[in-house]
């Protein structure tokens, strides 16, 4: 094998690309990972590190439960802590309709073995006495949901890939993919280097559409901006990820470092690659946050930033092979890349080698009907 020839070339060094590269490396594949900037410079390094299995559809719940297992064992696997902590996720219902949809989803979640409980407003008040429950009709809580530090997780995968003797090339933007060079893909970077492999994985997140187009693959995906902020640290009280689904709601969690980190989904979506910050978010997010926990009023904000959710019309990722033999995609995580990444990395690595899924993955299929109902807990 030539030095520029690999078993798999992965394009995109976020959680998806590194996790897949890690599991391919464990199965002794020769892997090259190409990243335009540096590992985590796209969406992964901008995410707030929440991890949950509380979803509303079977495949996503199964994948997410597998991911939680993997996060839990990372400290052992990597030999250092990734700041995993099961703080739980608390979803709040402010309308009868939302409450009913939570109750319906709990059935499915429990059937799949996920410990999700319905809490009344009274239960919430006694369990989390700092939460202002005005208007809350109840909520769901999953104690095995949690958080980890995205940078530490990336570091673990990076070391695993390197230790297997595989190659990560950062600052190496892919500018072309030619699938007509014998049985191999020819992947060209901006600096003119060429690499060859029979399999290619597009895990380029916000850039996955253009990476698809290089090979004639059309992905119905689009990045949109989501803003975040983080505060100074306070004593760790295990404040769970509190998810307020009201149109002017928000979600935030206390990191293991004591800091509060949070976001909201803008009512009017902001499509495009812009990851600039707005003053509107800087004033609106604190209002929404201290409406839920008034005692945080005097806590100081350290910084705000933004990142991209890469979304599909139905709110589910695309994790599959394509019409071009050997060209795989694992992208458009719709804001859930970090939490689903470890499991999807393992699933995709096995799929690229064994050509079969351990369970039905049609929810994430490349050629599915994208106009179906969206994920209810998106």
């Amino acid at each position, binding site marked *: 094998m030539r030095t520029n020839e690999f078993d798999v070339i992965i394009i995109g060094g976020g959680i998806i690309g590194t996790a897949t590269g890690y599991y391919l490396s464990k199965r002794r594949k020769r892997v090259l990972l190409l990243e335009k900037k*540096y590992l985590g410079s796209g969406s992964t390094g901008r995410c707030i590190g929440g991890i949950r299995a509380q979803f509303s559809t079977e495949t996503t719940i199964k994948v997410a439960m597998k991911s939680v297992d993997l996060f839990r064992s990372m400290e052992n696997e990597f030999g250092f802590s990734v700041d995993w902590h099961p703080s739980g996720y608390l979803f709040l219902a402010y309308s009868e309709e939302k409450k009913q949809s939570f109750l319906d989803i709990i059935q499915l979640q429990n059937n799949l073995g996920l410990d999700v409980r319905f809490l009344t407003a009274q239960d919430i008040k006694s369990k989390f006495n700092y939460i202002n429950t005005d208007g809350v009709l109840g909520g769901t809580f999953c104690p095995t949901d949690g958080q980890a530090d995205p940078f530490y997780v990336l570091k673990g995968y*990076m070391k695993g890939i390197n230790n297997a003797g595989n190659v990560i090339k950062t600052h190496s933007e892919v500018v072309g993919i030619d699938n007509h060079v014998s049985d191999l893909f020819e992947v060209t970077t901006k600096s003119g280097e060429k690499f060859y492999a029979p399999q290619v994985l597009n895990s380029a997140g916000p850039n996955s559409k253009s990476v698809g187009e290089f090979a004639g693959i059309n992905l119905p995906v689009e990045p949109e901006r989501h803003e975040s902020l983080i505060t100074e640290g306070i004593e760790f009280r295990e404040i769970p990820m509190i998810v307020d689904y009201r149109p002017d709601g928000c979600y935030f969690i206390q990191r293991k470092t004591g800091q509060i980190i949070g976001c909201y989904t803008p009512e009017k979506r902001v499509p495009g690659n812009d990851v600039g910050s707005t*003053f509107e978010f*800087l004033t*609106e997010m604190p209002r929404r946050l*201290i409406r839920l926990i008034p005692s945080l009023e*005097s806590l100081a904000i350290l910084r705000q*930033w933004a990142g991209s959710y890469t979304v599909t019309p139905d709110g589910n990722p695309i994790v599959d092979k394509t019409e071009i033999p050997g060209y795989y995609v694992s992208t458009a995580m719709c804001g859930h890349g970090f939490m689903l990444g470890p499991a999807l990395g393992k699933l995709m690595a096995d799929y690229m080698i064994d050509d079969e899924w351990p369970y039905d993955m049609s929810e994430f299929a490349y050629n599915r009907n994208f106009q179906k109902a969206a994920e209810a807990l998106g």
Partner: protein
Amino acid sequence: MKEDTIICRCEDLTYKDVLDAINMGMTTVSEVKKMIRAGMGPCQGRTCGRLIAQIIAKETGKPLSEIWDTTHRPPLKTTPLGILAGGDCENK
């Protein structure tokens, strides 16, 4: 500088921690920041940012212009949530 000299006091990181990140292949301030969380504490890199840039320059031989790639994030100064909450906003 000694190995145990503190470079980023907010995140308790030493000169050796920065060297280790560089040895792992990090060649810009952003990369070092994301590998070891340097500059992510209350001072927001005001103290350690330039030190780290200089260490990278010394170790890699790259010009500072290629190393200094961080974005300064608002707010300029740590500000309590209660003061910002519901503040007037022209682009609302």
